């Protein structure tokens, strides 16, 4: 049986959240796109380019939150290092964009990026070769985070590193990478990272159409990954993953090699994070080692927690909401926004242990209970 047939056969079990989610996501994106491109700035329906880039960034973050939720919410692997995969994907894209600059750089070197000219490098380092090809760079977006996740996951899960130990070494991983990428000798632009991008696949990154196209691509990819992930988690594989979260030793005694399942899921999640990074970079225009900062990775976890882990849409909502709050707060109260953000995290953990999605779940079940209480079906039979 092919994958596709399986997919189709499972279509019925795709369940409720996918269709509404995809519809709302793509619908809103389409509205934003139309608002930006068709309505003149004076119109009330106009959506500014600022909003478009902001939305693009939010959606990339949502994808990243999705990646974290897959491992944390469904498999109990709390990764405090997902920022690393995100940044690696971003760097792969950044390298492609750097190579696209060509001789339009400050020093006009046709091959070497500006920062290399400036460090007196004569030749392109080997790991930059091929990055001028879009397909190759995109392959790297998947492969580099995937490979790192595979090596790391294979080591960690094989030796059964779990719980806080795992969380802390993922943090060590991203911290080590941050220090490494800060080094100018690494050939990734040091602290400044990669910036000053010109165009992507020949389209100018400054053009509104390109921005809208990027937003739409991000939305489509997010919708696709959401659907795919939803399907994956509904298969028996997904059931094994959830079972690992709730009792890994038990799953082993059932004959599943749980380390391989965890590695596979970790790699899948890392690749999603890599894709998110690759989409993030052209929309914000810069990638630098700050993305590896351990605090960033913790923040991703916070988004997921706020939205509600263990539900895919919860992660997405959490990421959107927290980032929107950040944008608003930093502008409205530049001196006090950290108070608000901090308080939000504390309150959500205390009052909404299952996040906003959990709140929704609670409300809807209590509503349903009210409904069923009015028409008790076979009450005797069940009790």
């Amino acid at each position, binding site marked *: 049986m092919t994958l596709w047939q399986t997919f189709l056969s499972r279509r019925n079990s795709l369940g409720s959240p996918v269709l509404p989610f995809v519809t709302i996501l793509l619908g809103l994106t389409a509205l934003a796109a139309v608002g930006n491109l068709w309505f003149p700035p004076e119109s009330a329906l106009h959506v*500014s*380019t*600022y909003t478009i*880039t*902001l939305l693009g*960034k939010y959606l990339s973050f949502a994808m990243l939150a999705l990646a974290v939720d897959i491992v944390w919410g469904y498999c109990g692997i709390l990764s405090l290092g997902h920022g690393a995969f995100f940044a690696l994907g971003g760097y792969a894209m950044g390298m492609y964009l750097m190579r696209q600059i060509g*001789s*339009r*750089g*400050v*020093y*006009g070197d046709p091959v070497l990026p500006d*920062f290399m*000219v*400036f*460090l*007196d490098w004569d030749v392109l380092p080997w790991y930059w070769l091929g990055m001028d090809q879009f397909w190759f760079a995109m392959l790297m977006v998947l492969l580099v985070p995937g490979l790192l996740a595979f090596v790391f996951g294979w080591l960690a899960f094989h030796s059964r590193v779990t719980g806080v130990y795992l969380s802390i070494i993922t943090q060590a991983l991203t911290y080590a990478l941050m*220090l490494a990428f*800060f*080094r*100018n000798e690494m050939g990734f632009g*040091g*602290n*400044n*990272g990669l*910036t*000053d*991008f010109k165009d992507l696949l020949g389209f100018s990154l*400054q053009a509104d159409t390109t921005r809208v196209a990027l937003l739409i691509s991000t939305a489509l990819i997010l919708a696709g990954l959401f659907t795919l992930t939803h399907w994956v988690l509904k298969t028996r594989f997904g059931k094994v993953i959830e079972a690992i979260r709730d009792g890994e030793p038990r799953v082993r005694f059932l004959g599943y090699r749980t380390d391989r399942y965890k590695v596979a899921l970790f790699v899948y999640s890392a690749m999603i994070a890599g894709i998110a990074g690759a989409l993030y970079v052209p929309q*914000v*225009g*810069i990638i*630098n080692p*700050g993305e590896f900062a351990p605090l960033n990775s913790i923040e991703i976890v916070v988004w997921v927690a706020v939205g509600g882990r263990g539900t895919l849409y919860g992660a997405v909502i959490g990421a959107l909401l927290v980032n929107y709050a950040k*944008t608003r707060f*930093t*502008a*409205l*109260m*530049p*001196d*006090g*926004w*950290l108070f608000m953000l901090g308080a939000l995290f504390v309150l959500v953990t205390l009052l909404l242990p299952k996040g906003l999605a959990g709140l929704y779940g609670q409300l809807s079940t209590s509503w349903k209970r009210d409904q069923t209480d009015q028409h008790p079906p076979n009450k005797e039979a069940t009790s």
Partner: protein
Amino acid sequence: MTLKPILQGLTFAVASTVLSTAAIAEDPIKVGVLHSLSGTMAISETTLKDTVLMMVEQQNEAGGLLGRPLEAVVVDPASNWPLFAEKARELLTQEEVDVIFGSWTSVSRKSVLPVLEELNGLMFYPVQYEGEESSRNVFYTGAAPNQQAIPAVDYLRNELGVERWVLAGTDYVYPRTTNKILEAYLMDLGVAEEDIMINYTPFSHSDWQSIVSDIKTFGSAGKKTAVVSTINGDANVPFYKELGNQGVSSGDIPVIAFSVGEEELSGFDTSPLVGHLAAWNYFQSVDADANYDFIDMWHAYIGDEDRVTNDPMEATYIGFKMWVQAVELAGTTDVDAVEQAMIGQTVANLTGGTAVMNKNHHLSKPVLIGEIQDDGQFEIVWQTAGVVPGDAWSDFLPGSRMLLADWAPPLKCGNYNTETGTCSGTVY
């Protein structure tokens, strides 16, 4: 010092928030402030935010600009570099500010640059930096390397007879470039390679024991040795503390720093460091009436007599004054008009001379060398006879030797290659 300034800080924080959001009557001219108020850079940048707010307040008291009031729009990019770009876009498109004062680190400026060029914004960048840049949309009011590093080295060679050099810096672009320029410069002067030691450390490096000990060893070879420090921000305090503890006195091995000003020194006890040096275009201790006026204004504004002033504040001051003059000259806040009006503007600087905006968007400023005193101030021990024009493209780097920035007609180019006669690189 009492708790009073702390309380004032509290009220001020609230007040400034209100001020930035409350709309002032009759179509104000908006001034964007893009400095980090949280995160690692807040320590340096908050002061500059306050400086801009002070200048805005002062300008409004003097009747505003073009008959319109000024309104400051403060945002917090939170020391997050991509956020700088986003916030710049927000300022330019949502808030529709006419000018931005902002950025501290090079990477934040690099991050903002494409946005400025795309949306044709105008930014004043008030911090000393590595040069190698000249954007049409940015005015660089801090020092270029030739306004800080080169005179500093000359001073050490000529006045102190230094023959052996330690170039110590944080591993990022500003120290890298400065040290490359200095290395080339020193080699040109005939300094042997083994007499130059280059050392890079990560950001916020806090354990300096080994490096200071290495410097001591390097400096005990019989030749007069000096350290040229491009160590950034919060790594300085532990570095200087270690210097003091290991007894590296300024008499033995003087350290000259390009990133250490009054504000950095106010964070620790400087008595073991007396005599170490810094090179800037401004020191609070400058004996000039303009400076005293500025300090008084600052103290009155911030409500704390102990707050110091520093070079980036002077750069902000000069930049703001120049922008006001240019707007008045152009009669509009339109970026293209202001950009052209800016070139050739002169403003009395705080050191008693005159700052001139050159065609390459860099200032002509005097260069001062100061020695650290035990009260956290600098004693000026040397200064250039006149002003030094800022050089966007260093003459000591092979890649930029032939480049020239000239934004006046007819050239209007940020990196004109004098060898090929073309304006290479970015043309938006």
